[in-house]
Every structure is written in C-alpha cells, then in structure tokens.
C-alpha cells in the first residue's frame, strides 16, 4: 500500500465537495484509482465505496486499471472527425491490438479517445503523453510511435 496516500488526503477537508479533487490527485500520483485507494478515501471522507465508484465512473477522466508507460489520446472532436481522426484510432487499435481504454500486454501503450483537445485548427490531433501532434496522418503516426518505448 503506497504511503503517500495519507499525505494526499491530509491536504483536504473531510467534505464531499473534495471528493473529485482527491480522486484527481490520487490518479495523477498513482496513475489510476485502485481498489485499496478507494477504501482509504472512503474511510477518510466517511462515505461508502459505492458512492465513490458511482461518482468516479461517471467522469471520463478516472480509470481503475493501470495505464501504460505511454498514453495515447486520439482526439475525436468534430474538426478531427471531419479530417479523419477515426481512421487514426482504428489504425492504432489494429496496430497495437487493443481497443480503446485498454493497455497493451507489454505495458508500452494505453489508448484512449478524447472528445476535444482544443487544437481544432490543427486537426487531426493525437496526444502522446504530454505532447500534442498536429495534422496527423496514418503514415506519420506509424513513424511517431517508434519514438516511444
């Protein structure tokens, strides 16, 4: 059990409106929200684990399984859709042999779709870790993946 969960929790008051900020903090620290962590949060905020899962599963941001070493986010906003974002996603799903929301067995990549990264004028856009790549094509993306180990 990671110890720094307590130091994260202690920064927050024990009120319900802190739940989402806590979940966000926990996820950025541990990469995902594991069941042990939910138990801890539940005890701290004095609410049921069910309630926490209920809230967390409502929002697209939270994940309950470990992410890969590199996170790929394919933008499927309108502008990206019109310019071929879905084709990029399909190509990734085929190439990595996973579907959206999963992690490759070797833990190298996880794949997700996002509604909009707000770089619509440079569409289609793909985000890998913190880098945003604009005006992507299937060929460019294939080359790009090789950079990430």
């Amino acid at each position, binding site marked *: 059990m990671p110890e720094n969960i307590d130091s994260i929790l202690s920064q927050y008051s024990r*009120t*319900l*409106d*802190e*739940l*989402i*900020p806590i*979940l*966000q903090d926990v996820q950025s620290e541990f990469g995902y929200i594991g069941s042990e962590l939910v138990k801890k949060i539940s005890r701290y905020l004095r609410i049921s684990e069910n309630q926490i899962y*209920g*809230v967390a599963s*409502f*929002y*697209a*941001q*939270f994940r309950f399984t470990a992410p890969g070493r590199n996170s790929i986010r394919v933008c*499927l*906003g*309108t*502008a*990206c*859709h*019109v*310019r*071929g974002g879905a*084709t990029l996603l*399909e*190509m990734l799903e*085929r*190439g990595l042999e996973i579907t959206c929301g999963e992690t490759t067995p070797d833990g190298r990549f996880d794949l997700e779709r*996002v*509604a*909009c*990264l*707000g*770089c*619509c*004028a*440079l*569409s289609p*856009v793909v985000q890998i870790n*913190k880098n*945003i*790549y*604009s005006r992507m*094509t*299937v*060929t460019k993306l294939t080359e790009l993946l090789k950079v990430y180990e």
Partner: protein
Amino acid sequence: MNKLKEKIVLAKKKWEELENNREPIIFVGAASCGRAAGALELINEIGTFIKDHNIKARIIQVGCIGPCYLEPLVDIKLPGEPRVSYNNVNTKTLQVILKSHLIEGKPHVKLSIGHFGKDRYKDIPHFFELPMLKPQVRIVLRNCGLIDPEDIDHYLAVDGYQGFMNALTMKPDDVIATVRQAGLRGRGGAGFPTFRKWTVCRNAPGEQKYLICNADEGDPGAFMNRSLIESDTHAVLEGMLIAGYAIGASKGIIYIRAEYPLAIERLKNALQQMRENGLLGNNILGSNFNFDIKIKEGAGAFVCGEETALIGSIEGKRGMPRSRPPFPAIAGLFGCPTIINNVETLGTLPNILRNGAEWYTRYGKEGNRGTKTFSLVGKIRRPGLIEVQLGTPLKEIIFDIGGGVQKNFKAIQTGGPSGGCLSEEFLELPVDYESLASAGSIMGSGGLIVMDEDTCIVDVAKYFLDFTQKESCGKCVPCRVGTRHMVEILERITHGEGVPEDLLALRTLGETIKKGALCGLGQTAPNPVLTTLRYFRNEYIEHIKDRRCRATVCKDLIEFRVIKEKCTGCQSCVRVCPTGAITGPRSEPHNLDPTKCIKCRSCYEVCRYEAIAGDAIVIRSAEKKS
C-alpha cells in the same frame, strides 16, 4: 487603491520600454495551439541561436492572436522598428529569418506575413489589414497574442483592471444597469440577458452567494474559451471581480476542463499575482468588497457544461442536471444563490465597464449587441479563432475571413453538437441568436465547423448524435433511450441497411426528445439530425435507396480501386497495406483484393502524397440510380 495606482504607473513605464526597446525582442505565440505546432522547439532554437551569435535579445511568450493556420508565429521587433510577424515557421526557416532580421537587421519580406507598426514597411502589410483580420472587431480578444499573459504588468499597462476600478466607484445596482444598457447576452449559448440573471441573484435572500465561471468548454470543435484564458488570463478574472461585485458574491469558482492544463497553470499564476496586488481577499483596493477565487477542475463530462450538472459536479456528486426551478440564481451551489457566467461573457465585462455601455452598443445590432468569438474550423482555408460583430452574415465569415472552402462548400455546423447543419442557401443569414434559431440551429458557445463535398452529411449527423448519446447522463428517458435509438437508425443507414421509413422515425424521435428531455443537452441533441433531414434530405435518400455515399466516407458503401493506367508500380502502397490486400511486382500495375481490403485509407494517402506514386488509388461509391 493607491498601491495599485503606483503599480500601474510602473507597468506603463515597463510597457513603454518594451515599445521603445533597446534590445531586439522575439515574441513567440505559445498557447496550446502554437505549442502543438511546435512553438516550444522554436523557443529552444532561438535561445541557442542568440547564444551562439552572442546577441542580446529577449524572448517573450505571448498567447494566441487567432489565425491558427499561420502557427507557429514568431515576431521580431528590433529597436526603433515595428514588430514583424513570421508565419508557419519551422526550424529551417527560423534560421533564415533570424539571420536576416536579427543579424543583418533586415526583415525577411518573403517569409513574413505582417507587421504591427504605425509607419509601415513598404513590402509587408499591416497584420490587422490582412484579409482574415480586417473584417474582425477585436474587443474580447483585444490583447490576445499581444501581451504576455503571465505578466500582470502587461495587462495593467493596457488599462487592465480599469473596468473593475470603475465598477468599485459605482453602486452594484448601477453596474447591473450598465450591463443592461450595454445589452450583453450570455455568451455560453442560450443568449439569456446577463443583467436579468444578475438581478434575480442580487435580490435573492442569503448571506453567501457564489459566482461561477463556466470554463467547461466541452463542445468538440470549440476552443474560444481556452484561447482567451491562455492568452488574456487577467481579463477573465477581472470580469469575475466585476460580476462578483454586482451580484454581491464573496466567493468565485472557476470550473475548468482538466484537458486544458496550460490554461489552468496560467490561471493559478494570475490568481497569485492578483493576491499580491490586493485584487483578491478582504477589502479589495480599500473598498468593503471581499472576494476570493478558487479553481475546480472538471473531470471529463460534457453534460457538466449545463448549469445544474456543473453545480452537482462541484459539490462532489455525479454531474447530473436537475429540473428547474428553482434556478441556480436563487438556489444553486450548496443551496446558495449562484450565478454561472461563461468565460467570454466575463471577458467582455471589463471592456463594457471601462468604455461604457454606450460604446458597446455601437457594435452588433438591436437586440444582439456587441461581438462574439468563434472557432472557425473544418474544411476551411484559414481556420482560427475569430471575433466579429453579431449580425455578420455567414458568408462574410466563411469567405472573407475564412478564405473559403478547400473544395466545394457543402454545409456549416453552428453551435457544436447541439446546433444545426446549415446548407448553402443560408449563406446570407446574419449570425445572431434569433436568426440562427429560426433556421433550426443555435448560436451555442461559438463553434463553426465548415464542411465541403468530401464530408458525408449522414456521417456527421451520426457523429454528433453518437457524441451526445455517449455524454447523456442517463437521468431522463427521452435523452437516454431516444438518442440511442436515433444512433442505431443512423448506423443502419450508413451501413447501407436503411429503409425509407427510417427518415420519419428519425424526425418523430427527434421532435419527441426535444420536447421531453430534462436539460439543454437532450433538448438540443436532435438538432443536427433534424436540420440535416430538412436541408440534406437527398443525401439520406441516396444512402437508403442507392446504397451510395457521395462523399465516399461511409465504409460499407465504398470500395477502393487501383487505376491500372495511372499506377507506376512503386510498391509504396504494398508496404503500408496492413492486410496484404495489395499485391503486384515492382513497376507493374498493382492488384487490390477487395475481399481483404479494410478501407483504412493508408494506401490512398501514400498514393496521393508520395512523389513516385501516380495518384492511382481511387475511392468509389455506387453510381446514382435515376
């Protein structure tokens, strides 16, 4: 107050020094969009260049000036010379530009796009005289791309916080009256008069009142709010102070998408600067107005742009809308009177309070005063962030500002997934709240997506509905079940399995959802389908009757072919084909096996763009039966 006044004097001096610079200054547009285009790499390169050549120069990161198609933008200002802007800079052209402008002292005319000086360079146009910018009126975006958003001094030097200081000398009711006189309507989508909401909240009983800035810009294809926050952070915060003062709130919350990390970082930085200068906390600037601002990050739910869902989310619950009344202005966050204003509404307020209501009414038209920002994207030549007066015809936006469409214009979607798709016959339509509504669309937050003949209307309608269906919170039946059904029907149609009765079913379902859904998300979700059914009925019929997709988008209705006469036999497509569907020896026309082809477009892309290939791969759909 006096301390801030002293600070303003110093800030103006600092700004003047920037205008009359002794060392060259290099401005780089480094908002999220500029960064995606490679601005940060350029900054590193510039750093190395000036170090290697022993030049004393300053690099300033500015926000986004609007024309995204020109990104990344690098501006150079030599002492005593106007600032010259270079567009689409890459690491190669950067070296040429720096050598010419920084070392030889001559602007590189060919690579430049415009200048910002008063006395013009002969061969370079003024930046704001460029065709994309000339028809625009920049009120909300007035500082974007020109000041350093991370430096409060820059904002103070361009009369920042003057609007708030004016407000402090007035009674809150008079501030509301000014906004009423200016005719400002909420820029989040519905266009509800801002003063009316404020008056209800001001008069509502309760000690504690909240002001929430809605920066949960969830519409795919819209980025106006991100750009404004990233490029002129303090303007939005000043607007919050003014609104907070007017309604009598002491707590402000910015609810912003977690997908906008740079905007969040800049907000945190700006709040810190406000605190240091006595613009937050108790007795702000010596008055008895107390106000503090907190940031809450959204967690990725489109429906949280809806007021009551947003409140639920801040309270730590699932972001589900509730029925109104009571309206949030009477019972909102934690049951207290709450006003939720959009980023752009707030960003407009400092301008109204600084220049007066009468000044603001000079822009726009009766009932639709002022300007509106739009993100102009899709199949347009000059995509970007624009600001125009309300009432500007669509045609002017698409052709004069946007430079027209890459191929033939087909449609424009206004208002994002909740809006409608308008056809060519609406090009003269003035963009204001009522005109758009009468055409079956909405203003929405301001996304404008242009489509050309390569866009399949049925596919787009399916895309929007699939989006709203996935984002439906599931609370009310019309939205949860109805949108699901509509998506299923649309899927059938795009798979070539549609039947003529589907069109009536779509309309009936759509109209029922509009009437029956609980919140704005559901009530507007059918708009894309209903408008396309009205204006592009033929395309639906083609999909159903002829199994034909004229834009060659719907996968089940198209096939890929190699034109033997054009094929150079270069094997580029053979290499990229993931399923081995293309075969053929080098230098001979290749063979494409349609049973193996998964229509991924890889071969099509290589064949079009690789020099040795002959543009021989075509995508075809069934011929129209007449």
